[in-house]
């Protein structure tokens, strides 16, 4: 009897402890984000106040209103940046997935010479720091005439993401038993049909998880974008953030408002696919 109560008490304490630590952890994660949201709604005088103002006194959507009110009236071409970002991040993610599927399938299903070396080589392209790449890449792009174009940005991000998508998707295809596809082929399917009807559906969660990673990386990338984009033709949101800094002044509130605009789509997308994301990663990369 005694031991039982103690046990129950113990378990309850553990549970409360767990809830508290979960709450603390989530607060630490979310607070800086909430602070950005709050900063976008408060006048600067309150954000920078000393002694600090902890409880917001006045909230307004001024920063958002002026953000969309066009150049010259405190606005920056957010809509252009937003559209560029969507086009560039979405297309580069899709292309990186297709290329990654082709590559991953090759690594998973075929034997060929130098496989490991090629694989590691792919990965190592990702270790090159942006600064070593930016000027020569600019040079190559300038010769090809794709500076400040969507195409140029999309290609750059595909290259950035391909090593990763190949890796994740490769692991996933390995998971799908070879026999399944072979059985389908015996049943009269072509290899192509077998791929689409048997292997692809099974690998879908892995592809989704590779996709969300690729999307987030393209959506937030700054170093390459600042070098390869120059005008509203192709400037993306992270580069647009700097429009709020002038030579001597920074509009912190405006910047926060733009940050919120940047985060919302990424958050929504993650929320939608997070289920696939976890199950996708679960076995995708590990068994490769």
């Amino acid at each position, binding site marked *: 009897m005694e031991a039982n109560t103690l046990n129950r008490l113990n378990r309850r304490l553990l549970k409360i402890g767990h809830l508290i630590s979960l709450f603390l952890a989530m607060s630490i994660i979310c607070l800086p984000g909430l602070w950005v949201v709050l900063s976008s709604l408060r*006048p*600067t*005088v309150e954000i*920078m*106040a*000393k*002694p600090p103002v902890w409880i917001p006194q006045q909230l307004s959507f001024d920063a958002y209103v002026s953000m969309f009110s066009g*150049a*010259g*009236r*405190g*606005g*920056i071409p957010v809509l252009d940046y937003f559209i560029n970002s969507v086009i560039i991040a979405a297309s580069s993610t899709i292309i990186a997935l297709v290329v990654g599927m082709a590559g991953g399938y090759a690594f998973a299903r075929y034997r060929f010479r130098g496989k490991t070396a090629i694989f590691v080589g792919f990965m190592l392209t990702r270790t090159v720091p942006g600064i070593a790449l930016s*000027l020569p890449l*600019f*040079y190559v792009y*300038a010769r090809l005439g794709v500076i*400040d174009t969507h195409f140029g940005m999309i290609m750059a991000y595909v290259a950035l993401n391909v090593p990763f998508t190949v890796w994740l998707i490769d692991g996933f295809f390995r998971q799908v038993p070879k026999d399944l596809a072979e059985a389908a082929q015996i049943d009269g399917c072509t290899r192509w049909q077998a791929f689409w009807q048997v292997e692809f559906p099974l690998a879908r969660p892995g592809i989704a998880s590779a996709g969300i990673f690729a999307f987030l990386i393209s959506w937030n990338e700054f170093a390459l974008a*600042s*070098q390869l984009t*120059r*005008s*509203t033709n192709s400037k993306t949101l992270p*580069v647009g953030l*700097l*429009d*709020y*800094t*002038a*030579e*001597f*002044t*920074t*509009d*912190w509130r*405006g910047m926060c408002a733009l940050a919120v605009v940047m985060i919302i789509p990424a958050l929504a997308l993650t929320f939608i696919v997070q289920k696939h994301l976890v199950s996708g990663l679960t076995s995708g990369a590990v068994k490769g």
Partner: protein
Amino acid sequence: MRRTYLGVSIATVALALSGAGGYAQELPGSFEGVRLDVKLIGGQQYEALYERIGEWEEATGATVNIASKQNHFELDKEIKTDLATGLINWCVGSNHSSFAPQYPGIYTDLAALLPQEEIDAFVPSTIEASTLDGRLVMLPRAQYDVSALYYQKSLYEDEESKAAFEEEYGYELRPPETWDEVKDQAIFFADPPNFYGTQFAGKEEAINGRFYEMLIAEGGEYLDAEGRPAFNSEAGVRALQWFVDLYEAKAVPAGTTNYLWDDIGQGFASGTIAINLDWPGWAGFFNDPESSKVAGDVGITMPPKGSAGEYSAWSGHHGFSVTESCDNKEAAASLVWFLTNEESQQLEASAGPLPTRSAVWDWVIEEAADDPFRKEVLTAFQGAAEVAYPVPQTAAWIEISNAVYPQLQAAILGDKTAKQALDDAAAQATEILEETGEL
């Protein structure tokens, strides 16, 4: 030659202005079918002006293609990239007096493309600062920057602290006129961590620029007549020691060596800084209750003098340049003129930034007749503009800044003595100048 021309008196400028009417028919001119690629500085403060581009297109029949619009530092990076890859295939670019010497030879002499009267209508010192090796490489827009001293007025009205100050320092408490007075008062007002006497931008070109103007005010020179670094002089040590003393006395925020301009401005607006040497772009911000706690309590005066009696008045300005490789320089020069003419400058200056044409100065001061704060601001900055000087005109200025500022920081933070830090910095700067072939 240039000297005599710069010596023109205000009267001649006024004369020239009235004469400029004759050229109005020729400018902006007609450039049917011409297409100009331009690179502009982006950001809210700068973009209102670009709506005027449409008017110029209508007036001349030419079209303008904005090939790029970037933040100040990104634009600098971009122009260097273009230079390196041989891609100067555009006509008009935004430029800045501190950065201009880095792009040797890519910009053409505007004096050859525009009537002299138009050029004479600008404030002479800005034209001088825009002239490199005898070539007028840029035409200044109404984005002129020189610093003036902002302070919290109420601090100087409090009888108790007035008495206490006079008791301690032996002279009356009033807005400072010399750097020694700034030091006394900053230490007097400071109450860390809640309140600081003053602050300074502590890194990159910002601290080097502040050190440079202080050096001039102390009677030193940054580069000597032969272009050799000369800032490790006695005047240099005095200048740097000012920063060190304030830091040691905790009269400036402890983080000041990591501050850039935006931190400085936000700091003064937060009401925790007594005296603040800062740029004109902040005047409206400081006096706006939406953004600043000291709104209504902001006083402004000329920048202080150093022990040599010189003002510290390092200045810079934005402008537009025409490239040497441009196919249609006349059209490009016309656009540059249009974006810096009286109407354009009035448009920009009405939002707060300082003009660079003498007539527009008069205009803004007249406009501010009913606004005592704005009038005080304009008077202080006009005074500062008259004694202002640009950074040393060496292509390596930014590179030297990058080598010098960590040394200045080391002295301020107490890692080295002022003399030692300056000697080390001078050695590095000399090395840079030797490598670039300037020495």
